[in-house]
């Protein structure tokens, strides 16, 4: 009995020593906290009408998706509610119509250049469209070919030329979207897609310069060149596909071999039993 008591006593002490570790190991990730909201959203988000509306629109934008918040465009101090809209803290407010391209162009430098060189840019201040006319001001959507559509273009002019440009770019856009999806799928599986992403980023930027071009022949010629680069990226993805197929074949072979060996061991066990 004394021996058993000693065992229980000793094991109890051992457990007392390891129990904090057990507790530590059992402490698990609970729901991760959301990052704190900036003061702009805290105040404007709860306001009604046109003062609160931009927050709702921004939440569905590509800017929100990429963590580009109010202060990135409008300036100010997003951490200090009292001085958030103080010019001394860099608050810019909303730009005048003619200042919009420069306002957006602080980040989208190349796009601003393309816009200013286009027929749209040349009409700035003379009734021509600014960035927000097509892209929206707070619910800024990802720049795709969908932005060129009859409803949008017909607000200012006939859709005919825009239709030709869109048709010329449609195939390239489809290739970009398909390649982007495939790269994202590989990235989500741990494949190093940095090189592919950089390649696609460069090609996509080159393609986007055509978005502000209204010369149909030039758009067609450039699109063909861009497709050449996209095919190279697609070939790299096809090589990855083939490599993954080979892995699966090797895996199937390995599994079959293991099952045959298991059967062999089973037969040997029965033979000796």
């Amino acid at each position, binding site marked *: 009995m004394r021996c058993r008591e000693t065992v229980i006593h000793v094991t109890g002490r051992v457990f007392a020593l390891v129990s904090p570790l057990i507790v530590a190991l059992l*402490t698990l*990730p609970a729901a*991760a906290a*959301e990052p704190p909201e900036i003061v702009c959203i805290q105040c404007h988000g709860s306001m009604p009408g046109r003062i609160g509306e931009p927050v709702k629109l921004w939440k569905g934008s590509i800017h929100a998706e990429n963590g580009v918040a109010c202060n990135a465009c409008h300036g100010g101090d997003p951490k200090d509610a009292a001085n958030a809209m103080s010019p001394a803290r860099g608050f810019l407010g909303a730009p005048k119509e003619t200042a919009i391209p420069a306002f957006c162009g602080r980040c989208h430098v190349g796009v601003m250049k393309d816009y200013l060189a286009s027929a749209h840019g040349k009409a700035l201040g003379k009734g021509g469209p600014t960035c927000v006319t097509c892209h929206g001001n707070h619910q800024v959507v990802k720049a795709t070919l969908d932005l060129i559509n009859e409803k949008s273009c017909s607000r200012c002019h006939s859709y005919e030329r825009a239709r030709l440009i869109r048709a010329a770019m449609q195939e390239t856009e489809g290739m970009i979207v398909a390649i982007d999806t495939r790269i994202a799928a590989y990235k989500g599986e741990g494949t*190093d897609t940095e090189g592919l992403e950089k390649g696609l980023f460069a090609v996509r930027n080159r393609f986007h310069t055509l978005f502000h071009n209204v010369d149909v022949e030039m758009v067609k010629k450039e699109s063909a060149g861009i497709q050449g680069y996209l095919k190279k990226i697609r070939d790299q993805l096809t090589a990855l596909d083939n490599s993954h197929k080979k892995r699966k074949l090797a895996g199937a072979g390995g599994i079959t071999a*293991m099952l045959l060996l*298991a059967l062999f061991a089973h037969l*040997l*066990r029965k033979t000796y039993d």
Partner: protein
Amino acid sequence: MALLKRLIDWIDVRIGAREVVAKELTGYLLPRNINTWYSMGSILLFIFAMQVATGILLLIYYVPDADKAFKSVTFIMNEVPFGWLIRLCHTVGSSLMVLVLFFHMLSVLFMNSYKSPRELNWLTGFILFTMVQGISLTGYLLPWSQLSFWATTVATNSVGAIPAVGQYLVEFLRGGKLVGPPTLGRFFALHVALIPAVIAALVGAHLFFLQRTGVSTPPFGQKETANQWKGDGYHYENHPGGIPFFPVYAFEDVRSIFIYLACFLGVVFFFPNLLFTRDAFIPANPLLTPAHIKPEWYFLANYQTLKLFPSEFLGLAVQGVAMTFLALLPFIDRGPERHPLKRPLFMVCALGGLLLWIGLGVWGHYS
């Protein structure tokens, strides 16, 4: 063959190898009604060896530095020949080790093999179980991805709920106020040196206790299923007329290991991302909290339990009590009967506990 025989003779005259083989292998008899569940221990030994081997191979290229860890893992997965295979074997192996460990513990539980005189076998096995969870948790941080960084942040944060010493423990685990490079250093040391050494020592102790008590007879197909040991003296449970460990049961072990390998390769080659989320392939960013971080499948029940209680401390305390109860089960459950069907209350509690654990895990996954 003659050369081989001469070599064996040479060894035998020096260390008595044939005597050891006769005693520990061909003469080591096991109960005739032994079943496949007894192979789980051998599978676990095999997995542990594989984890050590693949871990050493990963160490060749892995860099335990917060600035380089993620890139080094990406390099292993994409540039090192068969690096992807070695890393997947290590990650899938760690998860399957926990799964097989569960099977091993459940078989011991339902066959009531934990009962006296095998309290120490159970206790060392239980501590091994916590150590395996510990090595999985520390290994989780090493890729330094968004998933590993934030999972570790919240996991170490929860320790702060322990009264009085909680905050000190959090800082001790992290090596600072927040998860950062010192945490990676600590977890790396724990993962590759301390915990494997403890596991190896515990495996040794576990096998030693098994060797000293003898293999337990399964309670199934027996007339007398009550525990015969009275606690009045040391007794080795031998099995006269039983089946020899070598070659008969050794082949059963080998068969089980090959079946395990077939399943393991199935996951590695056909479902390699079963255990990963997209956050596992994004480098750690202390300034960007992912929307939802879920723990590994074997921690999901604990995760859901923590969420069910209004206070984190209460959730931890309940789990601590449950774990302590399980660890001390052989000291609490002293009844001699070993057949589970003759112990309806035990069966209801054990099955209920198992279903509760699975239910909480599924809830945690979808919550």
